[in-house]
C-alpha cells in the first residue's frame, strides 16, 4: 500500500494540466493568425522543417549511460546489504565495477567521450 498514491497522482497531474488548459481556453482570448502561429526564429522567415536527420551528438554517451545506469541499479541492493555480505560482497562488486571502469577507459581512449 506504499504505492497507493502513484495512480491518483498521475491522474491528478494530467487533470491539472489538461483541465487548466481547458479552463484557460474558456477565458483567454484566441485570435490565431498566419504570422502569429508561424514558427518563431527571431523574426526571420523559417527555412525548412526542424524534423530532419541531424547529428545527435550524444548517441555514444547514451550507450555508455545505459551501461552505467544499469550498473547503478544493480548496486542499490548491494549497498543495502553490504554489512551482511561483508568483505566477499565488496570484492565481487569491485570486480564488477573494475570491468566497467575498463570499459570506460576503452571508450575514453577511443574518443567516445569527446563531444563533436
Amino acid at each position, binding site marked *: 500500500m506504499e504505492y497507493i498514491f502513484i495512480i491518483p497522482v498521475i491522474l491528478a497531474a494530467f487533470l491539472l494540466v489538461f483541465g487548466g488548459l481547458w479552463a484557460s481556453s474558456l477565458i483567454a482570448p484566441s485570435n490565431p493568425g498566419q504570422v502569429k502561429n508561424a514558427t518563431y526564429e527571431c523574426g526571420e522567415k523559417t527555412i525548412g*522543417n526542424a524534423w530532419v536527420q541531424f547529428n545527435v551528438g*550524444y548517441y555514444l554517451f547514451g550507450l555508455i549511460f545505459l551501461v552505467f545506469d544499469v550498473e547503478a*541499479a544493480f548496486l542499490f541492493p548491494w549497498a543495502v546489504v553490504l554489512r551482511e555480505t561483508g568483505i566477499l560482497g565488496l570484492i565481487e562488486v569491485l570486480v564488477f565495477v573494475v570491468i566497467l571502469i575498463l570499459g570506460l577507459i576503452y571508450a575514453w581512449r577511443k574518443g567516445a*567521450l569527446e563531444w563533436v
Partner: protein
Amino acid sequence: MSSGSNSLIQGVSLSQWVGGNAWTDTPWLAFAAVLGGTALTIGFMSLTAMVLVYAERKIAAHFQCRLGPMRVGWHGILQSIADSLKLFFKEDIVPTNTDHLLHALAPALCVMATLLALITIPLSPSISIANMNIGVLFLSAVSGLGVLGILLGGWSSNNKWSLLGAMRAGAQIISYEISMTLSILVVVLFAGSMKFSTIIESQATGWWIWRVPVVGFVAFFIFLISSTAEINRTPFDLAEGESELTAGFHTEYSGLRFAMFFLAEYINLFIASSLGAILFLGGWMPFHIGHFSTFNHLMDLIPPGIWFAMKVCGLIFLSMWIRWTFPRLRVDQLMRLEWKILLPIGLVNLAIAACLILSEYYFFVWNPL
C-alpha cells in the same frame, strides 16, 4: 547519546495509514484520505513554486543591487500570484507546424514526474505522503521521467532552437544522472536502507556529510554539482541558454503550458534541495554536538519540520547563489566535467565508502541490523 530524538522519529505516513486498518475499517475515510493527500500535494506544489519564483526574483535582484518586484503587495509579495493569474488569462498560442498532441503532452509529463517525486519527500516525522521502502530508488527513477517531457516538448515544437535545446538537455540530464546516483549510493551504503525515514533516523547522532571523514563531503559536492545539472540550472542551463537558443526547449510554449514547465522546474529545485538535506544534512534531525546535552536539548525544542525547512531553504539559497555567480559552461566542457572528472571520482569515492563501512572507520558507527 541523544535520548530526545528517539521520541521524535516515530511517525506514520499517509499511505501507511491508508494501507493499515483504515482500508478495511473505514473505506470511505481511506478513499477521502487518498483524494485529500493528492489534493494537498498539488496545493503544496503550487504554493512552493510561487514562493520559490518570488524568492528567486528577489534574491537575484539583491545580488545585482536592484530591488526586484516592489509594486504588487508589500515588497512585491503578491507578484507570483499576479503572474500566475496573468499566465492563466494569456492566449494559448500553438504554432501551426507543431505536433499538437505531443506539444500538449510534454508539460503534463514534466508535471507528472515532479509530482511523483514530491510524494516521497518526508517533510517531518508526521508529515509524509508515501514512505516507500525503496524511496531513494523510486525518486531517482521518476525524476528521470522529466527528461521525456523536455525531449518531447523540444521535438514536437518543430523549431530549431527547441530541438537543439531539448537534445542538449537530454544529453546533460542522462549524463549527470549517473554521478547523482553514485553519490546517493554512498549514503545508501552508510544508512543500509533506501527508505527515507530510516536514512534520516540513521543520522540521529550526526549527519552523513561529516560523520564519514572526506567521503561524505566528496559525495555531497558531487551531488550538489550533478543535481544542479539535473534540474537545468545555471551554470548548466545550456538547454535554455537565452543568448544562443532564445528559450531552448520551451521557445514555442506560451500561457499556461509555459507556466507548467516553469512550475516543474521550480519544484525540481525544491526536490533536489530536500534530497540533499535528507541524504547529507540529516533531514528533519536537529543539530547535535556529541555530549553537549544542554545544547542538544535546546536544539530538540525546535520542531523537526522547521529543521527540515531551514536546511532546504539553505540549500535553495546556495543554488540561487551559484546561479548568479558562475557563468554558463560550453557543451563540450559540460560533457568533459561529467565523464572524465565526476564519474571517475564518484566511482573511487563509492569504493572507499564501502571499505570504510567494513572497517567501521567512521564517527558514531551505525548498525542497522
